[in-house]
């Protein structure tokens, strides 16, 4: 036994170094605290009902739905990178595809968990599968997300099977090999399912004709909104994965993915972002000039105060332009500072979009004699967010420590 190495050294991926087990355990106290907060809030919510949250009859949707929509968009790096790697054969992406799958897995399972908390009758969750209303966008979302979660689990399994501990087990080796052989099939299924539910998430809001802030009709609901949501996800998804890798690099002090691969991800996300931005600007134009006047409302009536101010509307759009400048222009993309700013503002714009579409849309008075209403998430709602954050950190940290998450790591960190 080599006492200079961490105690669990035998389990580390080949050629990779990890910090001591004590240091790792101490680091784990951070997610543990988040998990504790989350478990307490989840218990309080499940035991006493949703009255323990900051939600009310005006804001039936709040932080949780915003988080769900945001993480599902940010987790889209999984299906999109999988599609590009396994179906379109962009070989370079093999260096990041497993990581995007794990990020996607965490985003989707986290969203599913929050959804269970968010519905008033969690024990009736299965009604969604058993008594589906085929006209509801939410039904499509429920089915696609569940199926896609299964696909993400399947994409995650090979990583575990490739753990060093199983090296000598022939059966597991074969199993892992077979998973890889069939991975293009799962990547295809994943892309198919994701296309539908990403689009349907947009449709979920777009069909609400009682809410002029989010309502879109005719061409601007189908195919426009459908593809806008999809495009926003495939723009932000790859960039979010890159940001997560970079954060992990900062924490571990190692290079995990080459700059070249990151640049490729940025280029892909940036290209998608151009298409999304054009679509988004046209969508906003149609909303201001068609949906609003037809509803008897003006642009100014849609905004008030700071939280609901038009500043955020402009910020969402301007961030996209900055994102394009940083990610789609090769000269700027090659400069790390611009590259990361580009990725950050793109993700910011998409998350902001999900926030205004959820919270602001409900805060606006639709009946002329109503007032604006305000919503603040309370500790229990943030607690659920902390729970999925804690769970994600633990899963990522353990996966990184013991599984070959980054194929380039050993080579990039050779001493």
């Amino acid at each position, binding site marked *: 036994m080599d006492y200079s190495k961490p105690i669990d050294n035998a389990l580390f991926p080949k050629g990779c170094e990890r910090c001591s087990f004590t240091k790792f355990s101490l680091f784990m106290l951070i997610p543990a605290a988040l998990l504790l907060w989350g478990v307490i809030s989840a218990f309080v919510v499940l035991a006493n009902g949703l009255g323990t949250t900051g939600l*009310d009859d005006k*804001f039936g949707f709040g932080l949780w739905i915003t988080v769900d929509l945001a993480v599902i968009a940010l987790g889209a790096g999984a299906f999109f990178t999988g599609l590009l790697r396994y179906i379109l054969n962009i070989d370079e992406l093999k260096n990041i595809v497993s990581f995007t799958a794990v990020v996607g897995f965490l985003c989707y399972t986290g969203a599913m968990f929050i959804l269970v908390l968010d519905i008033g*009758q969690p024990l009736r969750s299965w009604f969604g599968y058993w*008594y589906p209303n085929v006209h509801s966008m939410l039904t499509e979302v429920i089915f696609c997300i569940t199926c896609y979660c299964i696909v993400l689990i399947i994409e995650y399994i090979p990583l575990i099977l490739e753990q060093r501990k199983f090296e000598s087990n022939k059966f597991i080796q074969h199993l892992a090999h077979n998973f890889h052989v069939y991975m293009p099939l799962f990547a295809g299924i994943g892309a198919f399912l994701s296309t539908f539910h990403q689009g349907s998430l947009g449709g979920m809001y777009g069909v609400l004709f*009682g809410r002029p802030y989010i309502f879109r009709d005719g061409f601007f609901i189908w195919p426009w909104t459908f593809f806008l949501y999809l495009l926003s996800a495939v723009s932000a998804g790859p960039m979010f994965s890159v940001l997560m890798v970079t954060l992990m690099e900062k924490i571990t002090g190692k290079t995990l993915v080459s700059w070249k691969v990151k640049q490729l991800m940025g280029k892909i996300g940036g290209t998608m972002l151009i298409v999304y931005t054009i679509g988004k600007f046209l969508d906003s134009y149609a909303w201001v000039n068609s949906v609003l006047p037809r509803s008897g409302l003006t642009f100014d009536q849609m905004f008030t105060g700071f939280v609901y101010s038009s500043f955020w509307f402009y910020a969402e759009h301007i961030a996209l332009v900055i994102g394009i400048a940083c990610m789609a222009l090769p000269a700027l993309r090659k400069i790390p500072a611009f590259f990361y700013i580009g990725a950050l503002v793109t993700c910011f714009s998409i998350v902001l979009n999900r926030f205004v579409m959820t919270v602001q849309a409900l805060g606006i008075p639709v009946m002329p004699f109503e007032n604006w209403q305000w919503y603040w998430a309370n500790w229990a709602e943030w607690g659920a967010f902390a729970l999925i954050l804690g769970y994600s950190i633990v899963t990522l940290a353990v996966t990184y420590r013991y599984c070959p998450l980054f194929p380039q790591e050993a080579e990039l960190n050779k001493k």
Partner: protein
Amino acid sequence: MAHFKDFTVRYGMVIDLDKCTGCGACMMSCQAENNVAPQEDASNKLRALNWLKVYRLSNGKEYPEHETVFLPRPCMQCGNPSCVTVCPVVATDKNEEGGIVSQVTPRCIGCRYCMASCPYHARYFNWFDPYWPGDLKEALSPDVSTRPRGVVEKCSFCHHRFMKAKDKAIANGEDPLMLPEEAYQTACTEACPNGAIVFGDLNNPEHRVYELKQSPYAFRLLERLGTDPQVYYLSKREWVRRLGDNYLEQEETGKPLQTLLNNSH
């Protein structure tokens, strides 16, 4: 938009806002009739259950020109209900003669998508377990099931009364779809001391609502959104009718689309 079937019988209301004094008797009778649970602390009005809610409208002017009107708002039983198509589990539907939008609480999973879709805020969520202080439990109506925590509920136009009236008609050998006006009335209609609420079959010329809804002073809330509400309001005051919908500055009250068309030609 989904198309809902054309009903032979379409129950609806015509509420005369010039008669309503805002006394709240309709709200109270509704609570009692439908076993709507009172709140332990009802100070947060966004958490209180009121299938029927009385809003106060103001013309926004200073005294002596200031005027106030009270507007009772039940579920509009929309002809094109935005809440029905969105429900993922068909816990709310509009497919029974009478045109009442149902709410099947044992089916509801409490996702609140229908609440997000309803522009009238006619849907209420049970944030806590229902609470019946003192002997109130003894006064519960056996005709309406109570609702547990975590589901959405809303005005049903006292649907249990409709069922009873139909049963009675069938027992008497009469047509259950041609009920006389007085055979089926909602609790709020009966409770209103000023007769501001008139209830009946909007398709039946023998029911008062048939005529009333055609009054030049009749309007519906947020009509231009396309929800096709089955609740009409009456007011001789223009500012009240104007507050029933959103209008652009240049638009005439009651003729939004016409004005837009004129402008574009």
